[in-house]
């Protein structure tokens, strides 16, 4: 008697699987979700600026298709029951286990379709100008197992809970489970989920993702669920052995994924922040070394463009002092909920303990392009490269370009050099007006970035009045400004020189009466 699939040839299961596969591929509901999936993948990757990150996040776009397939396989496995064919089917020689196997095989028909979708996504990601670095193909492969797993779960639920209504709570459970695991952003427990978002640290070197173990983990669970489905018709010796083997695989892969970093590994990873020079690739352009982390090398051209544009407007003697531009993580980064998070808080505990904030975010007065692409997707600000451009302007006038981790940004209210730094940043990026439009204003008159993801990493807390003054300079011929800067550079970058003086030298009226030096806390020369 072919009670268990493993005791039979499986030819019937294959034949049934082929038929189910054809029906699955022609299922109109599934087709709709397949057609929607490219758009969902695009939506899931929107806001990413690394190919590595996009290849991780695109998995989210496959989740609705997974649900659709779960429903479809559930209904397929319940088809005999729903249409009262069960009595007839039960009098036929092919065992229920073989029928279950047929449904499992048929449910996997969409896996090749998903592979095609992923291949398309890979081509798009690899050729997208906005993205830098290289994609993580092993992370994308997780999508195959998520969709395949959904198909298997749909069948397993149908076999044990033979009512189509039970697929709804099953989907709800998967959502709740994935959500709860996703929230453990700094715990390795998050890898026990189906898909694991990329770390807000934005540094692949700090996000130790056990992608291969995660594939093993998901594959083992898929196999376990398939065995659970088959076990409905009895657990034979072979199925029992398979259960035990799969349980071992689940435990091993689960432990491997969640194992805390050893002291040595934690130190090595913290070193990525503490000693960026050891982990970055540098490119010498002119006299300046531009250094970026792996996956960020493509950004160097952009940095070089805005920084050289800034330097074109400052005296050659000043510009010549720039020798190195080194990428550095922003002290505050955005999180998955579009809110700000302290950079340290998004690191795993053992790594966090080994990070020296004095080393990683030293007040060295240098230009440090960040990890974000400065486009602030959550705020739709589109401030591309304004962060770096204003840093370059601040560096040129002697203001601190970036803030240190613990010290708040300094104040340079009414100083001419503050207005000049902003103007230089605007000349290079053209985005200052956009910033002024979307930023709030604090009680002290400073630009405020409430719940920004992240706020600008500048070493200066610029005021709205100084921003307005810098924007007013857009009406003045750049040549005139360049001439005044060249003739009066030392005076204008002196902390005691109010911005009103700059306007006097330009021969135009000040846009505001508040352009006087007040409460300045920034150092005379930051570098």
């Amino acid at each position, binding site marked *: *008697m072919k009670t268990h699939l493993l005791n039979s040839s499986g*030819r*019937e299961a294959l034949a049934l699987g082929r038929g189910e596969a054809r029906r699955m591929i022609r299922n109109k509901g599934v087709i709709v979700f397949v057609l929607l999936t490219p758009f969902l993948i695009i939506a899931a990757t929107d806001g990413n600026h690394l190919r590595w990150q996009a290849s991780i996040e695109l998995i989210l776009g496959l989740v609705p298709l997974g649900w659709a397939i779960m429903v479809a396989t559930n209904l397929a496995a319940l088809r005999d029951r729903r*249409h009262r*064919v069960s009595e007839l089917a039960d*009098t036929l*020689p092919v065992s229920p286990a073989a029928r279950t196997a047929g449904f499992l095989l048929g449910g996997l028909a969409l896996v090749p379709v998903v592979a095609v979708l992923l291949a398309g996504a890979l081509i798009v990601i690899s050729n997208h100008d906005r993205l830098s670095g290289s994609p993580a193909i092993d992370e994308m492969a997780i999508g195959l197992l998520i969709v395949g797993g959904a198909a298997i779960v749909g069948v397993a639920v149908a076999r044990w809970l033979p009512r189509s209504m039970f697929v709804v709570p099953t989907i709800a459970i998967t959502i709740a489970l994935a959500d709860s695991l996703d929230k453990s952003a700094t715990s390795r427990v998050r890898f026990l989920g189906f898909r694991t978002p990329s770390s807000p640290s934005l540094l692949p070197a700090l996000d130790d993702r056990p992608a291969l173990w995660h594939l093993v983990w998901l594959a083992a669970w898929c196999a376990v669920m398939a065995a659970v489905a088959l076990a409905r018709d009895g657990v034979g010796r072979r199925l029992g052995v398979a259960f035990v083997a799969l349980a071992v695989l689940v435990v091993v892969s689960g432990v491997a994924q969640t194992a805390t970093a050893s002291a040595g590994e934690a130190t090595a990873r913290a070193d990525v922040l503490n000693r960026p020079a050891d982990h970055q690739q540098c490119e010498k352009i002119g006299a300046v070394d531009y250094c970026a982390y792996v996956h960020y090398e493509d950004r160097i051209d952009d940095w070089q463009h805005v920084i050289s544009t800034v330097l074109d407007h400052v005296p050659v003697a000043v510009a010549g002092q720039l020798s190195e531009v080194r990428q550095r993580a922003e002290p505050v980064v955005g999180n998955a909920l579009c809110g700000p998070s302290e950079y340290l808080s998004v690191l795993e505990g053992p790594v966090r303990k080994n990070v020296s904030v004095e080393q990683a975010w030293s007040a060295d007065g240098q230009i440090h392009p960040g990890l974000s692409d400065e486009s602030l997707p959550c705020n739709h600000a589109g401030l591309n490269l304004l962060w770096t451009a204003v840093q370059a302007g601040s560096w040129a006038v002697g203001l601190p370009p970036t803030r240190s981790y613990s010290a708040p940004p300094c104040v340079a209210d009414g100083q001419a050099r503050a207005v000049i730094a902003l103007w230089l940043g605007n000349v290079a990026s053209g985005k200052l007006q956009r910033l002024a439009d979307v930023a709030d204003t604090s009680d002290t008159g400073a630009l405020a970035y409430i719940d920004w993801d992240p706020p600008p990493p500048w070493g200066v807390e610029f005021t709205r009045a100084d921003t307005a003054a810098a924007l007013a300079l857009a009406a003045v011929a750049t040549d005139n400004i360049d001439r005044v800067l060249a003739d009066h550079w030392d005076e204008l970058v002196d902390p005691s020189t109010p911005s009103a003086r700059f306007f006097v030298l330009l021969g135009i009226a000040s846009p505001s009466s508040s352009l006087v030096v007040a409460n300045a806390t920034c150092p005379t020369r930051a570098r």
Partner: protein
Amino acid sequence: MSIESIVSVRDVRRSFGRTVALDGIDLDLGTGVTGFLGPNGAGKTTLLRILATALAPDSGTVRILGHDPATADGRYEIRCTLGYVPQEPGFHTRFTTFEFVDYIAILKELTDRRQRHDEVRRVLDQVGLGTVMHKRIGKLSGGMRRRVAIAQALLGHPQLLVLDEPTAGLDPEQRLRFREVVGTVAEHHTVVLATHQTEDVSAMCGRVAVIDEGRVLYDGTPADLAAVAAGKVWLADHPGDGARLSWRTASGRYRVIGDAPDRAEPAEPTIEDAYLLLAGERAMGEEASAA
């Protein structure tokens, strides 16, 4: 093949809660067509489901083609040689006729795709559905669906064909065609069918068993069954006092089963007369026992 070696039912009992569906059935079936006649709730369908391995008896023994359906191996062997049409066959209404029968063919272990498709076409042609094989079952009439059910039962040339009211909903032409198909199968194999259509029994069955309240009231040939009513069937102008059953016929006269009314003429008994007589006698006997 001898009678005993095909289907043997011994003292089979089956209850559903307090309702006794089968109350000690004994039967031996051989090659040819055997019809089960009986009123609704008589136990015919329960007996057929047991023969089709869809249901296990509470007690008693069943042997089919030498196999015991009480064992897993026995059930498997029986199912390999069985064709079954349930009383209310379900269909995957979104499937085409071909797809549905093909699905059942796979469940009958016809795994070679080409051979299976040939076999599916053969049985669909056999029941006259060859021209609608690519039509969705949901769009077929009730009679056509019944033919789909018969077609799937014919897959693989089953040695035992168990048919529960197979002709319900068939038009006269299709009923004739069905009789022809069953007659062909029954030349070498065993066909068991339950029906309310006594004319089907007359036309197809070499043997008939009248079942009521879970018991076999009669087991023999249709001609012998009709003979049971010999001398008890009359045509008269009124039912009379001694009629057990009577009804007005199209000619305006009454057909009376029981004692002859005044001025009655004897009528040729039919299977239906005998069946009604047997069922009526049993009911009256039980009433007398209760009194």
